[in-house]
């Protein structure tokens, strides 16, 4: 399932997955619990979660949602492949 990265500005005391799910009404099928809540910039209280595309679309514009971003595939560059 395609996932997107959502950034949130949160009070560090409220930056748990359980609290985020409750705040935005996210079901456990919509959030990657293994990924959890990851701090991007502690000084700015910026965190990320990983959610389904449908959930990400619902979160756009809601309070404390800083943005919805792509979660592109990445690969090792090498070994170089002949065209």
């Amino acid at each position: 399932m395609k996932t997107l990265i959502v950034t949130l500005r949160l009070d560090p005391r409220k930056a748990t997955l359980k609290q985020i799910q409750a705040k935005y009404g996210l079901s456990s099928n919509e959030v990657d619990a293994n990924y959890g809540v990851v701090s991007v910039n502690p000084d700015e209280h910026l965190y990320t979660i990983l959610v389904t595309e449908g959930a990400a679309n619902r979160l756009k514009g809601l309070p404390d949602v800083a943005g919805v971003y792509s979660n592109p595939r990445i690969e090792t560059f090498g070994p170089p492949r002949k065209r």
Partner: protein
Amino acid sequence: MKVIIQLRSSAAAHEAAMRGVAAPEFFTGLGPTVGGISIDSEFPPVQLEGVQTTSGAGVRSLSQPLSFSLDPAQSTYLVRGSIPDGPSQAAALQTAVSHPDILGVFSDPLIESCIVCPGDPPVGKVGNVAKRLSVSKLAKKKMEGHNVFLAIVDSGINVAHLKGQDRQPKLDALNSWVPSGVGTSPGNHRVSHGTMCAYDAGIAAPKATLLDYALLLSKTPGSTAMAGLLSDAVLAYSRLRTILNGMPANKRAMVISNSWGMFSPSWDFPPGHPGNYGDNPNHPFNLIVASLEAAGADILFAAGNCGRDCSDSRCAFGSAPPICGANSHPAVLSVAGVDIKKFRVGYSSQGPGRLTAQKPDISAYTHFVGSKVYPEDGSTSAACPVAAGVVAAIRSQYPTAKLSPLQLRSLLFKTAEDKGSKGFDYDYGWGILDPGALLSALP
């Protein structure tokens, strides 16, 4: 020594040049030697247009306005020959230039195709790279990576393989990381790309403490063997920042080597979309890279393998600039690839970069026989850890408190061996990493 001989205009030379094939009667008329130079009679004479400056003075610079004429009377004719090597060369040359029919004698150096492409055999060995990196000079100054964390963010490291290649790597398994769902542990992953990167970083920094961040061990359905998602990179970087922040401020030394990225813009939202990664400084991965560099980490990214001469078959950027996302981040060192003969490898991605135009930053060595993981340690994937090893070696004596990541990058640029256009260019960046010169420039 092979030479090019410039002959004065003559009807015979012009007629032979017009035929465009070797003209035996012309060369017979010229004689087997002219002024002590043996003539190559298989090489047809070539007409060189007469050239004049607008002022009528001699040509001093190719930058001045010039006019050319195909009039045979004003043309000269080039033939090929050879002069003896050794002590008699100077006298032979003197005789040649005194000959009334000869206007000049010029070197005819050997030229060859020097662009290395995917699938080409390796150029040189790891020993050549170590010499180019002045590794023995670094070691004499106790710059071998002691007390420096060197994170290999890749497909995992296999320590046993490194030991089999006469390396004694020090791995901090506790501070290493494996994405959830991966069955192997740090230092014990399958031998692949990440092991090659660890080996190449160890050329200059054999005593660094390796952190094994096996980001690209696939757990994504349908993906290739060494792929992942950028969200895992956000997670990995968050952990690295926690480790870095836990180090005493005066001893912080962490180098992060990244030989990965995107091969296709179709994997991303398009440029201009608020959720885009490749062109968007606000993407959380680009933010966390900035945050980690601000905390004192030296972050290196491979420029990529989408060079115009012979790009990797996976490249799907078309005519768009391929150095994107964190690979083009202003707070990282973007590394292009050169072979040990100091030529850019044809697949090394060229600038401009997407997040910041002036990319790649610097070039480092690749496409040599090294780790034995692959026939050659190739791609900008090898160039990046080669450079990361040098940075880690310097950090043994210069923790971040003494020299910030930005200051170190500036010194690397200033001391790089300039290649390509003068100063910065989109092929080589500021030039080829030159640790020997860097040592002299350190405060």
